[in-house]
């Protein structure tokens, strides 16, 4: 029974909930912009790697080529969306 219970996943789930609460705390506690941003970025980075390694099994793949291709595509879409939005919403406006 012990090996059947997914301890790692339950822990990962609880940990991701805690990280979400930490991010939420930034709104409720009065802190400087820099401090808040630091907490958010650190929490986001941990959260992302938690999801990638624990739930998406990124380290278990056999073909590194597809993996890198996938990450590059995801980064491409993500960065284009962020910087494109900034261009359209803020930088471009004169």
């Amino acid at each position, binding site marked *: 029974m012990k090996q059947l219970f997914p301890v790692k996943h339950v822990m990962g789930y609880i940990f991701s909930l805690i990280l979400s609460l930490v991010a939420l705390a930034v709104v409720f506690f009065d802190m400087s912009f820099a401090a808040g941003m630091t907490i958010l970025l650190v929490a986001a980075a941990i959260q992302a790697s938690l999801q990638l390694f624990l739930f998406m099994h990124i380290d278990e793949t056999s073909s590194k080529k597809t993996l890198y291709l996938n990450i590059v595509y995801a980064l491409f*879409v993500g960065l284009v969306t962020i910087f494109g*939005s900034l*261009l*359209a919403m803020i*930088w471009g406006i*004169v």
Partner: protein
Amino acid sequence: MKWDEFFVTGEPMIYAADICIVLASLAIIIGLTYFKKWGYLWREWLTTVDHKKIGVMYIISALLMLFRGGVDALLMRTQLAMPNMTLLNAQHYNEIFTTHGVIMILFMAMPFIIGLMNVVVPLQIGARDVAFPRLNAVSFWLFFAGAMLFNISFVIGGSPDAGWSAYFPLASKEFSPSVGNNYYSLALQISGIGTLMTGVNFVVTILKMRAPGMTLMKMPMFTWSILITSVIIMFAFPVLTIALLLMMFDRLFGTQFFTMTNGGMDMLWANLFWVWGHPEVYIVILPAFGIYSEIISTFAKKNLYGYKSMVVSMVAISLLSFLVWAHHFYTMGMGVVGNGFFSIATMAISVPTGVKLFNWLFTLYKGRIEFTTPMLYALAFIPSFTIGGVTGVMLAIASADYQYHNTMFLVAHFHYVLIPGTVFAVIAGMHFWFPKIFGFRLNERIGKIAFWFIAISFQVAFMPLFFLGLNGMTRRMYTYSPETGFGPLNMIATIGAFGLAIGFIFLVYNIYYSFRYSPRDTTGDPWDGRSLEWATHSPVPEYNFAIIPTVDKLDAFWFAKQDKKSLFEGKKIEEIHMPNNTGGPFVLGVVFFFLGFFLVFSWWIPAIISGVVVLILLAMRSFERDHGHHIHVEEIVETEQKLRGDNA
């Protein structure tokens, strides 16, 4: 809340719809009971995890939604047929163009394509089902729950009325206080989750479950298009999910993401919507390209010209599709740099699209062309879609777009790409793969009558809109005065719309007629096809292939037929492991429907209960053990003999 706020009242058309809904529901319930079909419905359809049946359910839903969206279109066209018509008032017209757009894109085009890919892709790659059959059923039932939730809005609570793009601030609580846009946000979220899971499912299916020997570059073009579409779905739909979530928070919980005050940004909605929305148009067009590639090469009796360039241009389109979204709001005032960038990126898309068009033309060149119904749609697609594409390049020029923006010219453009592109493709695909699913072809004569009605009426209905747009008629105006001079062209467009309706009636009648009278196909390969789906029997047995075929080149089935060889040589029939049917996905869909419905009306206690039930169902699934079942060799041999028609 009083009952007259709950039900929509005061319009004779709505009362008629109420009566129709009640009568139709009663007819279905009485019919099922009288013919004792409840058990059949539950066992064979509601609980199925078979990709073919799920595909058929998607296509039936899509046809129903085509009818719903089509009636919306006819009402709008009738209202616009002459100046100062009073069939619809402004509010009713707003609701109708909103539901027409949402339903046609998300609940007609999408499920039709997902239905075809469900039916065809596993067969084309020689697999027995998709990678996650049960997840596939969940996808369908979530889509269906979302679609039904959206569809009841016009009789219960009122439909959304801020356009299919639901721009803020108009779609905010402040300016749209009715529950209409709550329906929009919740129904689309629920069905969007289903679509996202379909994307994941098909990426895994295509990457992991291809028949031995079928490398990526030996896959049929339709499968390639679905792989790329699924990748776009995976990257685009999360944006919509989050945007709709923020919209829900703004409308239900009083947050300020898209408001004009308190640090909110109304145009951010438009931005996020189109970050999803532009890739979405490629999600509905790329599978259409795949369908046309299959049909054109089958009926020109030639292999597809420029296979590699077809693949490369689809990959290029998938990357570019994420680079162009801001061309939907050039006039927002994002500055010269922004407009310039998105303008050039948009025009760049026409290059890979042009490559594909020329490849189809070269495939046709010197081919032995058979003018079957699916081929007619493919041939009508090429010139019509080109008009849509060329006007798209006109719209892509940011400075010129200041003239075209929000006029009927734009409406004509996107109908010219979506109807010959997607709608003709799914109809052609339905005719093409129909014998595979049901074992008989649709009648060619009625099919061609329907084709000519649809193809000609389409031009009659939408060509005038280009000129109306250039004359200054804006979209979404519910009426106009005689002095504008818009009358005659609008009348022509309305005649075309009714012609389209007649064509679709022929199409549906053809299904009934062929079901009754069409000769049954015993070969499994009625069109002399090229890819693996034609290598098995029609209708396809539960397990698809008794023996998994071995492939050594593109169109292996075609070449095997030429060389009088078999793809199944050297292998014995073995026991087949198949997934079990389950009622779980259906129940999950029903609970999600109620969750959405209660949230729409902000009935918190029932909503929380439904939400908890969803969580319980998911948790139960985690602890459920279901190892599927095995089909034994004798049973397979028996089925195969029966399907071959010999009784030995």
